[in-house]
């Protein structure tokens, strides 16, 4: 039992056995290639095909319906081997006799297939082995090695398995094992391509010159005009071919670089990166499941185009012609899934910030009638010193006043709390601590606000603030904040120590001084607002707020 293929030659339908089909196809392709630069190639091929149809038609009948290898051999013996048919000009004749056996004929070149006869997984390595004339064991070793490069190896293998067609027919297996593609051959091919281009350019120039005059005399000479146009086409198709090659290589290399970059950045961001950064990213999501979805979607949205770049690059370089609609469609589907996942992640994150709740408590101020209050911040090395402990602690801050520091990966310290100084309604000092948080609903936001812990200590007239607050164990980050309002009665004085700088948040004062100018000074509450009482040298604004 043999498999047959149905073909149409010159409008007549034939059932032909597969091996016979391969042979006939190869024969026609080879003959066709002989005439690639010939005028009237299509016409010659039509004539030859219609004669072949005639010969084959005589050899099939009711008792023998299928065209066999034997019949194709008969056809070839009648029509002649490609060498006998070819009818080239003098210089081409020499050229083709000299270079015939090499790569000038693209159909004789080795092609890349997967060798499923000698396979471990998909025959990719042994196929590559044939292509590069290497023992597949080395290629397999190479793959195992890059397996450790963040799994790039696996991805690359799967990609190659999808792209490279399997060597199924005998013809394909032969193509796979043909003359090796080594550096010599490649450079030769490139050189030939350039030479061909040059020749075409010259031919074209001559033709154009030659026929330029004739055009004037005989404007109806369509055929010759056609040949000039074809010179144009050949010339540009040559340029495009070379550009295409360069493009394919660029596509492949850029794709691989992007892929490695993408994988390493995702990997390091989620595992090895700054702890506080990683924590705050994961803690943005409602749960680790959502986080996983977000990571996967991110990889899909950015990874699919990169993988497709590599895919197309390899296809172009190895000139793989098999249909890739299924892969294209699956890539599109995966990419859309990625987009949907990203949208979902953005929505689920932003939903966590939809409600804000703020709670407040009064600081139990001792001796609230004192005249001068000293404000101070307790130095915390994790928060202040950027270099100290930097091996163990990871910092993350958008600006000077916003910091998140994790200590040995366990507790995250957020800074700084905001301090505002406002006039008081009565004659005693008062301090109110506001804690606020966002949440997907009021209840959640309230719980998160309550979980915030912040410490202030008082010793006589000295108030010591902590430079950070914590959001509570197992709490997600929902833009928790701590704000402190200090209510100061008239004629009382507040001294701001130098450490207070990062806690002050746009404190109104009569000098319009900035935060860094307000520290290390005494400020007295007057009818109009805070007035500096030891500000010699500080420029006082003419236009107080």
């Amino acid at each position: 039992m043999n498999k047959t293929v149905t073909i149409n030659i010159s409008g007549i339908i034939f059932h032909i056995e597969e091996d016979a089909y391969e042979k006939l196809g190869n024969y026609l392709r080879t003959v066709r290639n002989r005439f690639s630069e010939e005028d009237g190639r299509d016409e010659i091929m039509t004539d030859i095909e219609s004669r072949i149809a005639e010969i084959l038609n005589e050899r099939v009948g009711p008792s023998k319906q299928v065209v066999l290898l034997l019949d194709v051999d008969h056809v070839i013996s009648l029509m002649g081997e490609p060498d006998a048919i070819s009818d080239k000009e003098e210089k081409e004749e020499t050229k083709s006799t000299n270079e015939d056996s090499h790569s000038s004929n693209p159909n004789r070149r080795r092609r890349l297939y997967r060798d499923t006869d000698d396979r471990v997984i998909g025959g990719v390595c042994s196929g590559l082995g044939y292509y590069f004339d290497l023992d597949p064991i080395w290629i397999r070793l190479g793959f195992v090695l890059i397996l450790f490069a963040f799994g790039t190896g696996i991805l690359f293998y799967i990609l190659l398995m999808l792209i490279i067609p399997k060597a199924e027919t005998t013809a394909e297996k032969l193509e796979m094992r043909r003359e090796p593609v080594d550096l010599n051959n490649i450079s030769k091919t490139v050189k030939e391509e350039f030479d061909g281009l040059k020749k075409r350019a010259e031919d074209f120039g001559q033709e154009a010159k030659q026929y330029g005059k004739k055009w004037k005399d005989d404007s109806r000479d369509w055929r010759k005009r056609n040949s000039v146009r074809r010179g144009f086409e050949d010339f540009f198709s040559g340029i495009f071919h070379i550009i295409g090659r360069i493009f394919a290589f660029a596509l492949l290399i850029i794709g691989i670089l992007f892929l490695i970059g993408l994988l390493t950045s995702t990997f390091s961001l989620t595992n090895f990166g700054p702890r506080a950064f990683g924590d705050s990213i994961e803690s943005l999501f409602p749960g680790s499941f959502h986080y996983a979805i977000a990571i996967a979607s991110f990889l899909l949205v950015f990874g699919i185009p990169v993988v497709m770049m590599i895919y197309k690059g390899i296809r172009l370089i190895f000139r793989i012609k098999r249909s890739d609609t299924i892969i294209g469609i699956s890539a599109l589907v995966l990419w859309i899934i990625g987009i949907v996942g990203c949208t979902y992640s953005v929505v689920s994150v932003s939903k966590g910030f939809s409600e804000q709740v703020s709670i407040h408590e009064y600081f139990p101020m001792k001796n609230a009638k004192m005249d001068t209050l000293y404000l101070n911040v307790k130095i915390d090395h994790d928060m202040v010193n950027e270099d100290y402990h930097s091996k163990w602690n990871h910092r993350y801050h958008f600006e000077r006043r916003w910091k998140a520091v994790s200590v040995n990966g366990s507790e995250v310290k957020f800074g700084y709390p905001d301090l505002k100084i406002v006039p008081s309604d009565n004659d005693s000092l008062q301090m109110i601590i506001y804690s606020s948080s966002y949440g997907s609903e009021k209840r959640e936001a309230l719980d998160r606000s309550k979980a915030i812990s912040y410490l202030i200590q008082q010793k006589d007239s000295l108030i010591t603030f902590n430079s950070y607050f914590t959001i509570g164990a197992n709490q997600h980050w929902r833009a928790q904040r701590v704000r402190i309002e200090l209510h100061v009665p008239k004629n009382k004085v507040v001294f701001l120590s130098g450490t207070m700088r990062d806690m002050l948040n746009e404190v109104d004062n009569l000098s319009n001084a900035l935060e860094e100018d307000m520290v290390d000074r005494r400020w007295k509450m007057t009818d109009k607002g805070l007035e500096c009482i030891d500000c010699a040298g500080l420029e006082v604004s003419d236009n107080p707020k």
Partner: protein
Amino acid sequence: MTIENTKANIENTKAQMRKGVLEFCILSTLSEGDAYPTEIIERMKKAKLVVVEGTLYPLLTRLKNLELLSYRWEESTSGPPRKYYRLTETGERFLRELESTWDELVNSVNEVTKKKK
């Protein structure tokens, strides 16, 4: 010159010779009457000029493009329609020229090769 190049040149000369002679033969075959490629081959084989059919098609196309030949389609019982070629007037003139050139050539070649022997 390397041996390979010499070989290639000999091959080339042979090919050129064969091609020129073949064109001449095609033209003179067609002067006996219109024919389609297979018939032309048959007539040549009778004259013991062994060629494969494939060789004919490029030559016919070339001669046609030079307007030495023209063709018409004719239905066939055993396959696709056939191209019947015929000599044009230019073709006939060209053939007569070729015939006289050929005679001269054969004479001269005989003269030269006889003397050698």
